[in-house]
């Protein structure tokens, strides 16, 4: 890496200290012109900090940055944009109430009469750009009305409009369906052919291997590896990322299904918008098995879980738990009856973020005699002992049990929920997106816990947007499409067939 002339980006010895944590510790990072360079690492490894420095949002404490061989100093994103750097953030920098055109133009608006925003010219510029890169977009659509795939496209066009030659994409596939991801990769390859350089941040190793030329791995603020994609594999990257060997496959014995634990018959329910989200769902869930639900998000999975957990009303049909009708039970009664729930929105529904770990660890159990005297006065000592045990047994990484849940990483927040729900020895475990946004190490741990629960005789219903997760954990897979279960498959069904079923195709072919 001596010939920095061919490097589009070269960051040397970057240091960035935040209160209590060194986010970047003497980081060296270089990207060759015209390559797709993947930057990988767990949450909190310092990837985003490094990229925010490269984009001028943060200033490094020390170190130097060279763009196309020249040392630069950036006071803000404006300077980065001038240097041809563009960034598509993980959380889109889009304004939902603005039009697509206004979003793309923002900061470099075409004007008429010196001050007036020129909508016509904006439209022309955008259609030119979208034609050149084959990225169709309607400039007059309201941004908030577009599906995320198109929003991301607008972000990319926004960056191209600013004349960026170096594109940073922060976790671009996190919110995309497999089809949308596939499309995105096509776009990225075209961009590279057109002479752009791309930095691709991800923790999905399969994608990294598919799309990148070279890989930089970070762990705890440091670079721990420079790899060439064609000479490496998932295991090597994962080991570097986590700092120990990681089991990427779920290690489990064949299931030994017992009696029917939960029986769902012709269940219907409405979404928050009042339109039918479940249109007659029926299945049986047996003790000692994991039933995975595969499907593109928004096909009724979330509503199904909520109805089963008692936080959403069913509009018709029945749910039986061990022969007892629980259709109309509220969440508290269901919990007492042995249903545990890991909700998909862990920050909104799973935890009270302002509460400490100890307080969160007894939510839903605070009235029991273990934790309170006559459901009135909390037994603080018992609660603290319980929380300490959970933190130890479930490997929650925290300085103390008094830390507010808000201050934990996503993986550790999820571990607190998993611990709380599983410690109730549930008959039925409802796990919705149990590893979303969680690090590889924590994923491995949570997967092991779910399997352990199954082996202990619990019936597990798993919903996940990650098809890989569904396939590796489940003993049976139910495919959901438009509020119905279209098929029940075995876990070794090829990905292509599941993908087809998930998008509404293949059901007839399968039946034939």
């Amino acid at each position, binding site marked *: 890496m001596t010939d920095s002339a061919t490097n589009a980006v070269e960051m040397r010895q970057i240091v960035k200290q935040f209160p209590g944590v060194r986010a970047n510790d003497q980081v060296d990072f270089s990207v060759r012109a015209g390559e797709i360079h993947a930057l990988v690492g767990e949450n909190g490894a310092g990837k*985003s900090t490094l990229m*925010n420095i490269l*984009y001028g*949002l*943060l200033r490094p404490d020390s170190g130097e940055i060279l763009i196309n061989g020249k040392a630069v100093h950036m006071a*803000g*994103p*404006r300077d980065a*944009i001038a240097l041809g750097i563009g*960034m598509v*953030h*993980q*959380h889109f*920098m*889009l*304004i*939902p*109430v*603005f039009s697509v055109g*206004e*979003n793309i*133009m*923002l*900061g*470099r*608006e075409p*004007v008429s009469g010196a*001050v*007036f*925003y020129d909508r016509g010219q904006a439209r022309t510029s955008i259609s030119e750009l979208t034609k050149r890169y084959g990225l169709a977009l309607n400039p007059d659509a309201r941004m908030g009305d577009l599906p995320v795939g198109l929003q991301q496209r607008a972000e990319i066009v*926004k960056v191209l409009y600013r004349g960026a030659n170096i594109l940073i994409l922060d976790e671009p596939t996190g919110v995309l369906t497999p089809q949308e991801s596939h499309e995105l990769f096509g776009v990225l390859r075209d961009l590279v052919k057109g002479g752009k350089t791309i930095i691709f941040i991800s923790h999905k190793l399969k994608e990294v291997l598919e799309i990148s030329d070279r890989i930089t791995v970070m762990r705890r603020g440091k670079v721990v590896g420079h790899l060439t994609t064609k000479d490496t594999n998932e295991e090597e990257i994962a080991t570097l990322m986590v700092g120990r060997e990681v089991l990427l496959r779920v290690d489990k014995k064949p299931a030994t299904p017992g009696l029917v634990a939960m029986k769902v018959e012709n269940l219907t329910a409405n979404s928050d918008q009042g339109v039918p989200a479940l249109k007659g769902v029926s299945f049986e869930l047996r003790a000692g098995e994991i039933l995975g639900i595969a499907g593109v998000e928004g096909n009724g999975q979330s509503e199904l879980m909520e109805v089963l957990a008692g936080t959403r009303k069913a509009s018709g049909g029945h749910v039986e738990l061990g022969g007892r009708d629980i259709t109309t039970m509220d969440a508290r009664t269901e919990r007492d009856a042995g249903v545990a729930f890991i909700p998909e929105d862990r920050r909104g529904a799973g935890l009270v973020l302002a509460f400490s770990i100890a307080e969160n660890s007894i939510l839903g159990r605070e009235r029991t005699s273990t934790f309170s005297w006559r459901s009135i006065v909390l037994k603080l000592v018992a609660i603290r002992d319980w929380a300490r045990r959970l933190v130890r047994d479930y490997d929650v990484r925290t300085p103390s049990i008094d830390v507010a849940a808000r201050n934990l990483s996503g993986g550790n927040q999820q571990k607190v929920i998993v611990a709380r729900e599983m410690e109730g020895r549930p008959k039925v475990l409802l796990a919705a997106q149990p590893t979303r946004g969680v690090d590889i190490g924590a994923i491995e741990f949570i997967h092991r816990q779910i399997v352990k629960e199954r082996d202990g005789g619990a019936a597990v219903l798993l919903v996940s947007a990650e098809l890989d997760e569904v396939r590796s954990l489940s003993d049976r897979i139910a495919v959901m499409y438009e509020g119905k279960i279209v098929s029940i498959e075995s876990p070794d069904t090829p990905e292509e067939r599941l993908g087809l079923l998930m998008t509404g195709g293949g059901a007839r072919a399968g039946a034939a």
Partner: protein
Amino acid sequence: MTALGDILHLLFTANLWQATLAAAVLLLLPALGGTISERTGVVNIAMEGMMLTGAFFGVVADLAWHNVWLATGVAMLAGGLMASVHAIVSIQFRADQIVSGIAINIFAAGLTVFLVNRIYGLQDVGHVGQSELLPNIDVPVLDQLPFFGKVLFQQNIIVYVALILLVATQIVLFRTKLGLRMRAVGEHPMAADTAGINVFLIRYSAVITSGLLSGLSGAFLAIGVSNTFVPNMTDGRGYIALAAMIFGKWTPMGAFIACLIFGLGEAIYANNSIIHVSQYLLSMLPYLITLIVLAGVVGRSTPPAHDGLPYIPGAE
């Protein structure tokens, strides 16, 4: 029946509408300021305090220098200074904007009373001479129009200024590059920042502008509509302007319509001597209308997405 008849009769007099417009403008200036400030994401409930400070220093300056224009400038400056305190506290130090606003309102009320006693002793503040008031201007020819001549073209100079500012604010916010950027900062400051827009500069300018406008309204009140300073003379107008801003869905034109409704109520109340209805009932009228309208007719009013939230660069 007679009361209803009285009001109906009153509604057809040019005098009433002339007074309505003047009363509406007192509210419109701070409402425009609030709209500008909140569109960029800084909640401003301190218009009341800024207006009061403007009114006081306007009178002080007018009495000292006998120059109404200088006095108006001082009033705006005083409002602007109060606003910059709010800006520093809420933009730089990321304090709670409601708390800062309340503090400024209380501070302004206390400061002006204190200074009245300090400067003028316990006697009257003193009256500003007729020649040192903001003048009424009759627009030649147009002021002779039947009905509309009196309502629109026989008004105080500040009324004309406010109407021009109203149109200008509407155009700037929704038709210009600057307005697009201001709204972007209020909706999603980080999106604006990453697009190369200076979030802090825009927020500071907007908050200080709201102070200047509130100060101007204070000047109109103290050395236009009346000719002296009375403690707490703004009488909640800053808060009513705030309601008008929300009622108007954070748009200048919407706020103006709301100000007209409030202004009409005030004008009817001022004419209570010719209506045979309890004046207390009459004084409730505009607020009653507002409550009813807000509860059902206007529909949900959505503030800018980042209204009231401080911006911390790089923190997602």
